[in-house]
C-alpha cells in the first residue's frame, strides 16, 4: 500500500483534473486531516484548511481531524507516513497533500475545485 505512495502526489493531481470535470462540488467532499496534536505545522494546517473549505465548499464538505499521537493506527491503515497530511477520501480516488497547507492553490487543486475557481 505504502509502495504506491511515492509519486502519489503527482499522480493524484492528474487524476483530480479528470474528476473535476464532473460536478465534484455538488457532492459532499470527505476530508481527513492527519495532525500531530498542537504542533506548529499541524495547527497551521487546520486553520488553513478550515479557512479554504469555509470559503470554497461552504457546507459541502465533511472534515475529520485525526491526531496521530493519539490514534497512530488510523494513519497506518490509511497509509499516512508524515503529518500534517490531508487526504481526500471521497469522491474517489484518494488524494493526498503534505505540509501545512499554506499554498492555497495546491490545496484547491488537490480538492478538485481548482478549475472551478479559475
Amino acid at each position: 500500500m505504502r509502495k504506491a505512495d511515492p509519486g502519489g502526489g503527482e499522480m493524484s493531481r492528474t487524476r483530480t483534473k479528470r474528476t473535476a470535470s464532473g460536478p465534484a462540488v455538488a457532492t459532499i467532499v470527505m476530508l481527513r486531516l492527519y495532525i500531530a496534536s498542537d504542533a506548529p505545522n499541524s495547527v497551521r494546517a487546520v486553520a488553513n484548511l478550515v479557512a479554504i473549505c469555509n470559503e470554497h465548499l461552504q457546507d459541502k464538505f465533511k472534515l475529520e481531524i485525526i491526531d496521530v499521537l493519539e490514534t497512530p493506527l488510523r494513519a497506518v491503515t490509511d497509509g499516512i507516513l508524515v503529518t500534517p497530511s490531508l487526504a481526500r477520501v471521497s469522491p474517489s480516488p484518494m488524494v493526498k497533500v503534505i505540509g501545512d497547507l499554506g499554498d492555497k492553490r495546491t490545496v484547491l487543486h488537490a480538492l478538485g475545485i481548482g478549475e472551478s475557481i479559475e
Partner: protein
Amino acid sequence: MKSNPRALDRNPVGQESRPGFDGRILQLVKSVPELRAIESGQVDAVVDPATGKAFLLPDAQRALREQARVRSLLALSSDWCWEQDEHYRFVSLSGTTPGNSAPGYEGIIGKLLWDLPFDNVQEVDWDAHQRRLQWRATFRDLELRRTDRAGGVRWVSISGEPTFDEQDQFMGYRGTMRDITLRKQSEFLAQKPIRLACDTLEALAIQVCVLDSFGTVIMANKRSGAFAAGTRGIGAGVPEGANYLGVCDRARGNERADGVAIAAGIRQVIAGESPLFRHEYVCNSPSGRCWFNLTVTPFPGDGATRVVVLRENVTERKRVDGAARAVVSRKKAAERERGERVRGLDHRVAKGRFIANSLLAALPRKDTQDLHAGLEPVTLTCGEVLYEPGEPIRHVYFPNDCLVSLLATVEGRDALEVGLVGREGMVGVSLALGMDVSSVRALVQRTGTAMRMDAAGFRRELRKSLPLQRELYRYTHAKLAQARQTAACNRFHVVEARLARSLLMARDRVGSNQFLLTQEFLADMLGVRRVAVTKAAGTLQHRKLISYTRGKIRILDRKGLKAASCGCYEAVKDL
C-alpha cells in the same frame, strides 16, 4: 526542520539523539515529496508502520514543550489560550483547565475575531482594533458579548500579543481568553439596586437634593428641574453644584422668613443638632398658590456629613384636605343646628363636654336626652362652698374636671373629710335618697367645670329614668362604703399611709397626676394638724413618690404610692 543527511543511524532507539533520529526518518520515508516536506520544515511527526507509533520531529517536540510551559502558566490566569496566524485567523483555541472546551467556540478555527458573532462591538471599534493589530500592538481585556445557543448572554475578555520568529518576522498573535460572564452578572446585579434607586428618585413627584456639609447640592433628581419651570418658591430647581443655603439666604420679599427658617433648619441638621427638620410654606406661582413641604434629614451612610432635602408639592393634598374640612364643618354645623332646634341643648354640651362625667356617660343614650335638657354647664372655683350642713339642696352637680370635698364638721373642732367627688360621681346624692337638706359641707377643692341641674328637675328626671336611679343607688352605696372605710382608716392608720390613700383617690377623681391641694385641705381630709401633713408629705417626697411645692402635687410613682398607702384605697377603689 533541517535534517542532516550526513548523520546516519548509529542509535536507532534514542529519539532525542539527532543523528539516530535522522537515520530513522531516512529509513521510514523514502518518497521525494515527503522528504521535501520534511526538509522544508513542514512536517511535525512521522508514523512508524512497523511499531504502529508516531514520533515527533525535534522542532515539533520543542514547540510543544514550549507550548505546554506557556499554557500551564496561562492556566493560572485564564480559561483558554489561542493563537492566530499572520492573517489574524485563529489557528488554535484550547482550554487550559480540564473539561473546559470553550463551549460555543468550536467553529472559531480559521476565522477572524471580528467575524465571530459578538454583538457588543461596533464596526468603528473593530476598525480601531484592526489598526492596533497592524501596529503589532498588544491588546488587553477586550470584553466581548455573545448570545449562546440557549439564549443566555456570555461574556469573554480577550487579550493578545504578537509573536515573531527568530528572524523577527511577524507570525501572528497569541493570547488568552477568559469567561467573565459571572463577573459581568454580579456587576450588573450590584448596580441594580443603585439603578433602581435612581429610577425611583426620578419617578418621584418629590424633589430630592443631597447636600454636603457646606450646603452645596451634590446630587439632585431631574424632578427638581421639572418643577423649576412650573413653580417658583424657595429651593425650586437648585442645580447640582449650587449652594442651597445660599439660595435660602438670598430669598427676598415674602419668601424672606421662609428662607431664613429653612437655612437655619438645614444648618441644624448638618451640625447634627437635630435629626429632622420640617417646614411647610406657601409660595405664589403664576398658576396660583402652592404649598410645599420641606423635610431635611441626615443622609444615611458613613463618611462625610450629608443631608437630604426633600421638597414636596402638597398643593393638591392641601386643596383636597381643605375641601374635606369644609364638608365636615358644614355637616357639623348642620348637626349642631338640628340638635339645638330639637333638644334645645346648649351648644357647649353638644360639643361633648358632659361625657367627662362618667356617671352621666354610663346612662343609656335615650335617657340622657331628656336629662341633658335640664343640665347647664357651670364653672366651680376652688374654695366655693356648694352646700352647708342643714341648708336645703338647690342644685345637684356632676363634676367634669373639678373636685368637690364633702366635709363633716364637728362642733368646736376642724372639719373632717368624709367624701371626695370628682368626675366619677355627683354632689347632692341626699336628694336622690329623698332628703333635700344637706348633711355635709360641700367644698370645691379644684377649679373646673361641672354640669348643674336644679333640684326639682333632678327629682323629676329621677322618677322618670330607671337607669339613672340604678346608677345613683350604685354610686350612693359606693359612697357609703367609702365613708365607712375612711372612718375606720382615719382611726387606725398612720398619717403617711392615709395621705397616700387620699392622693390616689384625688388622682382617680381628677384624672390627672398633677393637681393643686392646699395643706389646709389635706389636713381637713385626714383630720390632722397641718404639721403632720407637712411631715407626711415630706416623707413621701423624700421617697420620690410625689413632688409637693406650694400646694402643687405631682404623683411621680403611682405604684410606689399605692404600696405606701394603706389597703383602704384598694378596698374602695373598685366600688
